[in-house]
């Protein structure tokens, strides 16, 4: 899922300052799961903003709505009348959702209420960890299902580096050494011979280094 975190209230207040009637638009998929932008977060933020504005002697009208996914027309369409009735939309989706709103509703400013952070997993309740950078050429088959591109601080395909200590990364001792984990898992899978394989430099043009990416599925284009 896309993991994000709601921006601090003071920043959100600045972002919405020019408007007196806004829609807070939540997204019911990724950002709901990480407690940044689902129905509950929309309601809590709306209440916090109303209180804070009132304390400052300002009135703000806030409409609240959450659609299943802001990154799909099918769902975003359901917000059309709420959007047209507002001076601006404060989107609590990831950056993709905010841009979808901006693109589909050209006359209404689309404002971000969430810092989009990473693609990750729900490690355990309340803990989300980064797992994928969306590099466009997945190599997990070669690294025992652990991504060196994301999880190794130096993105080494031929690791480990010399700095790993007690299973921790030398860049930050709070981070597990990805290469230690890869080796442990090679052992568990009986694949230690893979450690001697050499992986040549990758072609990063499939990643964001090659400019804006696009995926076309001809079989779905009409």
């Amino acid at each position: 899922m896309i993991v994000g975190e709601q921006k601090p209230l003071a920043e959100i207040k600045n972002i919405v300052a020019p408007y007196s009637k806004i829609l807070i638009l939540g997204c019911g998929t990724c950002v709901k799961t990480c407690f940044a932008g689902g129905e509950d977060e929309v309601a809590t933020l709306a209440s916090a903003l109303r209180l804070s504005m009132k304390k400052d002697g300002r009135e703000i009208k806030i409409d609240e709505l959450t659609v299943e996914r802001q990154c799909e027309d099918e769902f975003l369409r359901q917000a059309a009348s709420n959007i047209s009735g507002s001076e601006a939309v404060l989107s609590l989706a990831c950056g993709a959702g905010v841009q979808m709103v901006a693109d589909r509703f050209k006359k209404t400013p689309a404002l971000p209420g969430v810092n989009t952070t990473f693609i990750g997993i729900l490690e355990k309740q309340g803990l989300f960890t980064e797992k994928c950078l969306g590099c466009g050429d997945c190599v997990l088959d070669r690294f025992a299902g652990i991504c060196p591109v994301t999880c190794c601080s130096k993105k080494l395909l031929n690791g480990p580096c010399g700095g790993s200590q007690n299973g921790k990364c030398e860049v930050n001792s709070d981070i597990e050494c990805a290469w230690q984990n890869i080796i442990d898992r090679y052992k568990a899978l009986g694949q230690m011979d893979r450690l001697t394989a050499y992986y040549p430099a990758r072609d990063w043009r499939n990643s964001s280094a090659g400019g804006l990416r696009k995926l076309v599925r001809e079989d779905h284009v009409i």
Partner: protein
Amino acid sequence: MSIPEQIKFKPKITVFHCFNAFSDPSLVSNGNFEVKSVKMACSSLTREVFLLRAFESGADAVVVLVCPVGQCDYLQGNIRAARRVARMKKLVDEIGIDGKRLNIYNVTRGDKSAVAEIIQKTVSDLAVLGPNPAA
């Protein structure tokens, strides 16, 4: 404890409580302050937005009463409530109306005098904090 002299307003206190923790906090109201009670089937139902909406509805302080740790009928309701209240206290600070207006207490079941003390402490605190500036 008597009501401090300097109180110039009639404080409104909203009390969210697990009905296992206490049956009816309005019992300790003495006429100089207003207590609104919101019963919950378990303190795990303490939702962040409800705490803020209590302030929007004019509460000067919000109190959450939960069972002592280890005594929640549903295991962790009181622990979850404490985490959420801690987070909301910070947000109430950010809102600018002072996180000290929001507090959570563990109360032994049926301990009316403990609840009365909590309410009196809240009234005393409000004498310093004053009315909710966003009410």
